[in-house]
């Protein structure tokens, strides 16, 4: 398995372009190519969970000259999230995307986005990370505007401009780091910065990275693109953007760089905790008045990503008890996985409702549980998960984050987390009342359940939502502890330079 690590980017990249060539012969092949490619990737990603930590030298070049690919707990966790959700979104797309034209091009862009995200997650080289980040971002700009309607193009353009600014900030930060240390290899960078110590230039780099990656992670002063981009994209893409992209490009990069390159630092910690709390509050209050279901979900993404960011922030704090910091970090990572499952489920459900009713306005819907029982039930499960109702997964991760903050001596942040969880509950109870229960409007009397290929991913994700909550002790050991321990152990990451 170790020798095939680069295939996580090579398979989707190659298949994306083979797909374009094959589409000139037959349009039907595209479905199968995308299905097989993402299926293989999902299986490979699950296999990676059982691999020990290793580094892969691209082209056989020894570090720090060549590009390193690193496989550890954190990248395995993210690989599973990206590829499993991607596979389910592809299954959903096979039927859903028939309402759009140019399906092969859609699959090509989708696979390029997967290639970019996998690349960001597996690489151990700063510039390589930037290149893959751009691949994923550019594919997502195109996918947001895929419908080519007026609002979609506008949202895509807005996302393009803001994303371009963020990428520039990131590149600028990388250039600064390179000028100071003379290396781009991440374990080597960590060693050099350890020797260099904190200075003003590094502070500027941190500011640039928090801005750039914060925009990709849509944390609150940089969130403006997200509420437009997510509703405009086709439903499976919204699920990918919200469930995976903002985590792989934003949160993962922040976590990797801040924990492993800069190391625990009180300043970074307080900035991240503040941004997280701000995102939680602003996101949830903006979500309240939205009538468009997908727009409301997009605002909730901002709010829920706040939980992840605040957890990471606590993990970075060297002044609190290490066990409590580890608990906060664990809660953040757990919420990351949970959010990927329930938010992509919610977006896919909204797509399924839209496929049959042709509307996204929640006030026009109602009583759909009688006509679309599977979609409605799964939507209900996801709503309960996101609002933190036991025994679903969202409850446990929020509980862990709140406990960690109370123990760490930040009662205000703990109280904000409780308040936001409560507001989320209100918001989703209303969503259920407006869409799933209530009176069925006359025009939807004849609505049918979505086709099997669309309901199957919904059922799998709903089972995951429940399983991640109920089977918490097993999940705990298998994936999350490894990821948490990886992040907290900066020395181990630095030693990859020589040990691999």
């Amino acid at each position, binding site marked *: 398995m170790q*020798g095939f690590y680069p295939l996580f980017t*090579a398979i989707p990249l*190659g298949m994306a372009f083979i797909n*374009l060539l094959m589409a*000139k012969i037959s349009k039907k092949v595209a479905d199968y190519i995308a299905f097989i490619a993402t299926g293989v990737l999902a299986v490979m990603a699950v296999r990676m969970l059982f691999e020990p930590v290793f580094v892969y*030298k691209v*082209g*056989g070049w020894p570090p720090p000259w060549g590009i390193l690919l690193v496989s550890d707990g954190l990248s395995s966790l993210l690989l599973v999230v990206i590829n499993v959700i991607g596979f389910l979104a592809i299954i959903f797309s096979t039927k859903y995307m028939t309402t759009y034209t140019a399906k092969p091009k859609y699959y090509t862009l989708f696979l390029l986005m997967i290639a970019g995200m996998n690349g960001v997650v597996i690489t151990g080289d700063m510039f390589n990370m930037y290149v893959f980040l751009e691949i994923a971002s550019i594919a997502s700009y195109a996918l947001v505007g895929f419908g080519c309607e007026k609002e979609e193009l506008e949202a895509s353009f807005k996302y393009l401009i803001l994303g371009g600014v963020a990428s520039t900030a990131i590149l600028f930060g990388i250039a600064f780091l390179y000028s100071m240390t003379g290396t781009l290899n991440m374990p080597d960078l960590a060693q050099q910065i350890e020797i260099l110590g904190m200075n003003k230039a590094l502070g500027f780099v941190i500011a640039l990275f928090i801005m750039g990656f914060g925009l990709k992670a849509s944390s609150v002063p940089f969130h403006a693109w997200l509420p437009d981009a997510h509703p405009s994209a086709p439903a499976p893409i919204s699920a990918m953007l919200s469930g995976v992209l903002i985590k792989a490009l934003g949160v993962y990069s922040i976590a990797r760089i801040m924990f492993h390159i800069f190391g625990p630092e009180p300043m970074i910690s307080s900035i991240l905790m503040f941004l997280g709390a701000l995102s939680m509050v602003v996101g949830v209050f903006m979500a309240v008045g939205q009538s468009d279901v997908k727009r409301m979900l997009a605002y909730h993404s901002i709010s829920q990503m706040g939980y992840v960011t605040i957890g990471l922030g606590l993990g970075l704090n060297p002044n609190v008890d290490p066990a409590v910091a580890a608990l906060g970090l664990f809660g953040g990572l757990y919420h990351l996985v949970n959010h990927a499952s329930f938010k992509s489920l919610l977006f896919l459900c909204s797509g399924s409702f839209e496929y049959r009713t042709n509307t996204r306005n929640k006030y026009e819907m109602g009583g759909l549980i009688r006509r679309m029982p599977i979609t409605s039930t799964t939507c209900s499960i996801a709503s309960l998960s996101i609002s933190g109702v036991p025994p679903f997964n969202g409850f446990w991760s929020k509980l862990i984050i709140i406990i960690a903050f109370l123990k760490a001596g930040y009662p205000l942040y703990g109280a904000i987390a409780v308040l936001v969880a409560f507001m989320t509950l209100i918001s989703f109870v209303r969503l259920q009342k407006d869409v799933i229960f209530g009176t069925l409007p006359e025009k939807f009397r004849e609505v049918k359940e979505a086709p099997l290929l669309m309901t199957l991913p919904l059922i799998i994700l709903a089972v995951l939502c429940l399983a991640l909550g109920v089977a918490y002790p097993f999940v705990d050991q298998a994936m999350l502890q490894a990821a948490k321990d990886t992040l907290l152990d900066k020395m181990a990451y630095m030693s990859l330079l020589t040990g691999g």
Partner: protein
Amino acid sequence: MPDIDEEIRDTSKGMTSIVKTVVRFALGIIVIFGAYIVLYGHLTPGGGFAGGVILACGYIVLTLAFGRQIALRKMNNKAASILDTSGVLAFLAIGLLGYTGGYFFLNFLGRGKMFDLVSAGTIPLCNIAIGLKVTASLFAIFLALSIFGRFISSLVDEDE
């Protein structure tokens, strides 16, 4: 389809005959220079991307001087798309062939003598693949923009 020589002489399409004559002389030099930059990428400054841009500029000059029909005869949008895709796949194939020596992107060919044209193993091949991709995709982008511009200006005309 009319004879290509007749179309080139057709004064109603493209720019004036001064421009056309200059482009006829310059085009060959542009293409040779682009190919040189691609092929000598491992020895001199430049490489696949820079050379590819120069080659694509050759096509763009051809389009501007003689009109789109002549340029499309040399490379139409379908051919551009296929060349573009095969450039990427060739590059990826070079990477995957590195597995014959055990590593992704291993330089598995002999290095040759330093400063020879055929040296540095797979790097010239990578440059050629990148050059192909950049030429075809930049020209395809140019075509797409010119078609889109015409589409937009037709919309504006309807409004007026």
